[in-house]
């Protein structure tokens, strides 16, 4: 089986995939045991599967594993832990910006991506930055507040 090498949360990994078109999401979840990224639609419409590739949020449900080769992939797990959360994660906890939490991965990754490019966003920039991420529980106000809080940190 073909092998693909990439950086994952700061470490080199090498994984096999029978199909070079296999979306990175399945590789992360099933081969690498990282469950932060979630399957939401498989159509790049909702954002639940987002990961950072070279610092930018990408939809891993449609991102072929072959394209990950040689690149730096960060997942939600790479940003922090419950005991030592990253800045965005800590802001989400502080604002209790989750209900079911299924979209939370995508929200945090999109926020991270936004803050990488726009460290001090306006409220409108945050809303626009999250425009492609769906939340069904309606936690929008808290998610936006959490991103604004993270931007101040």
């Amino acid at each position, binding site marked *: 089986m073909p092998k693909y090498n990439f950086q994952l949360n700061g470490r080199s990994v090498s994984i096999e995939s029978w199909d070079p078109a296999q979306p990175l999401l399945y590789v992360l979840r099933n081969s690498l045991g990282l469950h932060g990224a*979630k399957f939401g639609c498989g*159509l790049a419409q909702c954002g639940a599967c987002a990961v950072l590739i070279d610092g930018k949020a990408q939809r891993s449900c449609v991102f072929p594993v072959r394209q990950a080769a040689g690149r730096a992939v960060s997942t939600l797990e790479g940003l922090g832990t*419950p005991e030592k959360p990253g800045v965005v994660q800590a802001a989400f906890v502080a604002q209790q910006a989750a209900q079911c939490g299924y979209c939370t991965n995508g929200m945090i990754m999109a926020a991270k991506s936004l803050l990488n490019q726009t460290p001090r966003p306006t409220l409108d920039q945050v809303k626009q930055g999250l425009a492609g991420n769906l939340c069904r529980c309606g936690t929008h106000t808290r998610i936006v507040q959490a991103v604004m809080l993270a931007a101040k940190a």
Partner: protein
Amino acid sequence: MNNISRRDLLRAGGAVVVSFALGSPKRAAAQASGAGVDIRKPLDPHEVDSFLAVHTDGSVTLYTSHVDVGVGLRIAMRQMAAEELGIPVERIAMVEGDTALTPDHGGTGGSTGIPRGGVDVRQAAATARQALLKLGAVQLQRPAAELTIVDGQVRPLAGGEGADIGKLIGDRRFGLKVDSKASLQDPARYAVVGKPLLRPDVPEKCTGKHVYVQDYSLPGMLHGRVIRPPAIGAKLLSVDEGSIRAIPDVRVVRIENFLGVVAPDEWAAVRAARELKATWSEWQGLPGNDGLERFIREGAVDRHQDLVSRGDPAAALSTTDKQFSATYEWPLQSHASLGPSCAVADVRVDGTTVWTSTQGTHGLRANLSKIFGIPVDKLRVIYLDGSGSYGGNGNDDAAADAVLLSKAAGKPVRVQWMRHDEHGWDPKGPAQLLDLRGGVDAEGRIVAWETEMWLPTSTPGNRPILGVDAAGIAQAHGQGAGQISQNGDPPYAAPNVRVTVHWTKETPLRISNLRAPGKIANSFAVESFTDELASAAGIDPVAFRLKGLTDPRAIEVIQRAADMIGWQARPSPSPSVASAQGNLLTGRGFSYVRYKQAENYVAMAMEVTVERTTGKINVQRVTCAHDCGLVINPDSLRNQIEGSIVQTLSRALHEEVKFDRSRVTSIDWASYPILTFPEMPAIEVALIDRPTLPPLGAGEASTAPVAAALGNAVFDATGLRLRAIPFTPARVKAGLMRS
């Protein structure tokens, strides 16, 4: 910590043997052998030990059939128990929805998590408290009346040496019935209830450590996908297994019209399900969206029911100066869970275990037991968090899919639906149609009111499970969507009122409970029509409502919501409508509900702008005053209210399940859009706490006034009355062009 954590139980899987006398979870897990479940813990919901165990180290485990689908029950229930037991919430673990471990005191839904689930646990904890005080009295040689429990210790009220509750009872059973008269802590002294404590699951949810059912796996597990027919009633004619030969290690499972694939590799299963060639028969049994109103109005009626019959509205209407009538429509809507339904099943000869995010583990067990002929004591259903479900989404169907595939494959199988499965096949919230008639007198009082509703009737038995029907296995074909006929009458003084339901036999698509079932549409109609009457009477909408109310709790929420938005008294529509020249029209709307006629008081005000050229509605601000009796956790409650508002705005602005003669055609987020971040309004919530009153549920009530407040605001801004959901730009624009 020596308590049995949820994670340990999960790790132990279907083979867990929990020994409560021994306590150690690791040991319990190590004892696991075979699929036999040897649980000696009581499950009778009349027993204290069914609900809680106090461990030797002073930690406590709570057991409940009510599950936290993201609503904050996990912290609120801990707070209610902690208050009675005199221990910090951090020392409490919870086991939710496990048929082998939790008493069945109701499934999750109808906003019963607190008023039933939490209250039951609280009463068990209050009973345990009395027992602990008695044990402490013996140990400390003082009368129980002179003792209290603080920080996990029974202590004299006057101070002095105490005794740890863990030492007093330490993993032994209380052996007591829950005492419904066991006294509860005095609300004036609450130390834990009423505090905005942080939910324990949020840090794990934010770091990828939280175990959802979608994340659960077992050794040797296969991944399954089910291929649904291209038309709802189509029969499977043939399958070409050669079409997926290039995909490794896939097995096709065909049971009559049930078609699935299993594979060790998930992506292989996904591709196989997508690429497998199958031929299905034609079927065109649906009315299609366009024919829906006729389908409902002209369909066969099972029975007519008068819900309210007061005075003589027909006679009163005929003598009223001003009579009005209007028809309101609510479409079929999807739960549209962000993550598609998922389940893991392990079917073995000596017992079956199902991991699922169903809202009713015990109900699902009973149903699966009947369907598959597995005795209930050989079938264990374990809840794991899933994507928010808001009622009966595809979870129960996915559980049956997993059972069918595991049985066929002889291995544990995880089934996750694809996006088109969830949007296409989840049972839907029903379509609703309401005709209203009303009249006001010269002083602007409601003198007569009639509501006629067309609602799908409930029939006994479980909702049919998709895979089970497809596989040709006999099952019940019940129908129901919850208490959908409530809130059809105005919550205001009116001498002549009739509310009639025409319970229709048929519904085009399978239905189930969808958050605040029925009441969102009913309240939309009633509160919009109230606004129509107020406008016709030339009276300010808030003043019009207050005129018909005497209950101080109702009046308080209405005044609070109005004050928060800076409500200026004047009739609707806005006087600026006639003169407005620009593209942007501005207005405000109001709505009020007494949820289920006897529960929460909720009032809501909303400010909107409407773009004349596009018909797009922008919701600027929402204020909500909410009275649900005793508040357990104000922050978690706010989260629920904010979520209810945003989700219902989404339903009101965007959502309608589309279908043609054969199938649902709104099968992704492009064809079934929901509200996005740029559309989110500013939301202000006022909580009115009633510490001496019982706590009511709060997962639903604040959804009910949303659509009417929105429609009333659009009317105020434009003079256009919207009576059909969703308020899409096209519909608004067409309405504005007409008027």
